[in-house]
């Protein structure tokens, strides 16, 4: 058996959050730059330039990219050989608390949807757990903004609606959202599973790297077709027109019921903040033997 120190979880969660709120993946910045070069709409070009400048300022002056430092979403891949003698979710929330309180990030979480009283430390995080072989834990973390989350959508289609139904639903969602989710977007799509599974598939999709290519031929074809069609919607950066409505589309699928065709679309704003770390467990030696 193997273990990972509680403190290592806390420190890594804190570090990843503090870094991700001011730094985007290089592939995302590269996508903004190449989109800016291709855009002919002057307003779209000007906005993309400002988004790139914003990233430079955030980095050099240590200021968050966006004032909405999000709700924290965590996907854990937990090695089956690991043993935890503490509450893992609690440790993650301690890391979140330290990042938001000590790091001057905005606390955007309220205790109850109706009483709207702030928890004052941005906890609790939304945490998902998966198990994997081995003695490592992989922590995927993202401070997810409210604006793009609000424009995300889920629909239980009829199987007869097929691929066309999926595409139409996604295009309608993005067109109607306009500038509200802060495009250019990364579009996470889930198809299949059931009601809750499809939402998690879509959420996981926005955690994939921009250059990640799915091996599933159906999903791959859908990613290519959606990318092209979304960028023809003329939503553009911040909804003011242009050919850059999204910089990536990621589709994840899962088997589903004969009667169902669930589809979910989770929108990621241009402040596509995320981070991941792999921690390797230390072997627990049994001193009694």
């Amino acid at each position, binding site marked *: 058996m193997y273990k990972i120190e509680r403190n290592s979880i806390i420190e890594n969660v804190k570090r990843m959050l503090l870094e991700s709120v001011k730094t985007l993946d290089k592939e995302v910045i590269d996508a903004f730059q190449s989109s800016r070069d291709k855009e002919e709409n002057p307003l779209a070009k000007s906005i993309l330039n400002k988004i790139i400048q914003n990233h430079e300022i955030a980095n050099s002056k240590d200021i*968050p990219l966006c004032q909405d430092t999000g709700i924290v979403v965590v996907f854990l891949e937990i090695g089956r050989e690991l043993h935890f003698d503490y509450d893992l979710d609690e440790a993650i929330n301690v890391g979140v608390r330290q990042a938001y309180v000590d790091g001057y990030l905005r606390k955007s979480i309220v205790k109850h949807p109706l009483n709207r009283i702030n928890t004052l430390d941005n906890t609790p995080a939304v945490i998902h757990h998966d198990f994997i072989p081995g003695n490592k834990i992989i922590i995927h973390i993202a401070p997810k903004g409210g604006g793009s989350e609000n424009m995300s959508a889920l629909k239980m289609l009829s199987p007869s609606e097929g691929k066309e139904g999926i595409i139409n639903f996604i295009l309608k969602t993005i067109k109607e959202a306009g500038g509200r989710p802060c495009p250019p977007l990364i579009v996470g799509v889930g198809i299949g599973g059931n009601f809750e599974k499809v939402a998690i598939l879509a959420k996981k999709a926005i955690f994939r790297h921009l250059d990640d290519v799915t091996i599933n031929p159906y999903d791959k074809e859908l990613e290519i077709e959606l990318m092209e069609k979304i960028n023809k919607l003329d939503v553009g950066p911040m909804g003011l027109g242009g050919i850059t409505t999204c910089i990536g589309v990621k589709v994840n699928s899962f088997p589903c019921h004969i009667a169902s065709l669930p589809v979910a679309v989770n929108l990621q704003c241009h402040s596509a903040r995320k981070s991941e770390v792999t921690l390797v467990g230390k072997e627990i030696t049994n001193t009694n033997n």
Partner: protein
Amino acid sequence: MEKKLQTPITNEVIKTLSVGDEVLISGYIYTARDAAHKLLIELIENNEPLPFDVKDQVVYYVGPTPAKPNQVIGACGPTSSYRMDKYSPYLMEKGLKVMIGKGDRSKEFNDVVAKYKGLYLLAIGGLGAKLSQCVIENELVAFEHLQSEAIRRLKVVDFPAIVAIDYQGNSIF
């Protein structure tokens, strides 16, 4: 070329602005978002005085990150404006002229802006770091308990925005 605007923005200046114009705002603006709007409207409905005179003023929909000890303000990009649609007419009735936020608003809101000959400006969402560099003063005005949603008076210099709804109710969307 951006047009330079000084707050309070006068009726004469408002009339020179068209949808799609890029502007740079300097002067004082007030912050307020969902929770602060709700409280302001409650005060109006109870015939109680507002914590600041909204007449001819500019309201910016923002909830900034806390300022670090060496900073005037943290990241301070706009939040979505549509959530303020049901509150804004009350404030415009009291003389509020200009609103800054992100995204579209309800179709009916174009008529509200036209009725009061006001202005809706777009700030670019997600530019929290860049926009923080335009703020040179930051003073708490009211509702401190709302944390990031408290009302603040900011002094800004060359704050970039785009005209989204003009005084005649024409919209960029």
